[in-house]
């Protein structure tokens, strides 16, 4: 009877150990994915801040109003790519390509409502919505997609 229980324990271990490894692998990959998503969001956040901090000086001198500069979209795109570079190894596409395909909107007149996110801006703003493809090789081992696309959103308003 005890010998049978011992066999049962061995069988349970044989079944549970792979299951434990699968769960552990999935959890680790999910954690890594969350970390990359966090970094991509921080990159988008910093890019929108940089873009909105550069005001249209002519407009500011003329009316005193803070307006994003004419090249705010290009600036946001360039800084988004630069800040994504530190996580390039984890990305399935180049930072430049991800930034180039990002949906970047500049709201020069406020108040405004963003049709893409539903966010409302009380002041002029720059917004980024980007789809960031992240390599997830461990997911592939678990028969899940080898690339997981994370959508990041960030917006900054002039102050």
């Amino acid at each position: 009877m005890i010998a049978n229980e011992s066999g049962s324990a061995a069988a349970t271990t044989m079944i549970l150990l792979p299951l434990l490894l699968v769960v552990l692998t999935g959890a680790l990959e999910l954690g890594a994915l969350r970390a990359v998503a966090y970094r991509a969001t921080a990159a988008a956040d910093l890019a929108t801040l940089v873009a909105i901090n550069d005001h249209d000086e002519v407009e500011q001198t003329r009316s005193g109003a803070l307006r994003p500069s004419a090249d705010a979209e290009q600036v946001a795109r360039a800084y988004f790519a630069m800040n994504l570079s530190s996580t390039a190894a984890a990305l399935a596409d180049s930072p430049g390509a991800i930034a180039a395909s990002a949906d970047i909107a500049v709201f020069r007149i406020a108040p405004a409502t963003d049709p893409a996110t539903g966010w409302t801006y009380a002041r002029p703003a720059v917004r980024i919505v980007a789809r960031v493809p992240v390599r997830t090789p461990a997911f592939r081992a678990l028969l899940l997609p080898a690339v997981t696309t994370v959508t990041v959103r960030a917006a900054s308003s002039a102050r």
Partner: protein
Amino acid sequence: MSHSSERSISDLARDERGAVALETTLMIVILIPLLFAIIQFGWLTQRWIAQDGVTVQAARLAGELGGDRDELRTYVAQQLTLVGIEPSRAVVVVEPARVGWREPVRVSIQTSETIAIPFVISLPMTVASTAVARGELQR
């Protein structure tokens, strides 16, 4: 008959001891390192995210100050201390040291940590964070 029964019970008891020994060995050799690995890597991820936040704020400040200034170094040291990182162990690089208006300024912070997993490995790891902001100071 009675002798046979005694041997049988003795064998069974030995089997049980074997099973317990096997379970204990598995727990020590697999589960404890696994537990420590989860704790250590979780701690390292938390450290990396915290350091990353400091780096982003430092890049913004570097843009406002116009590059590598004492105020920036002091700010980074304070913020690293707040998130539990010893500032003396961090290498902070600001490129370029003097940034012009609308030029990119890159701030990198690098710290060395050690991951120690009992019975398995103890290895040094480098935690690196980089952020790029834009010079806002018109000289």
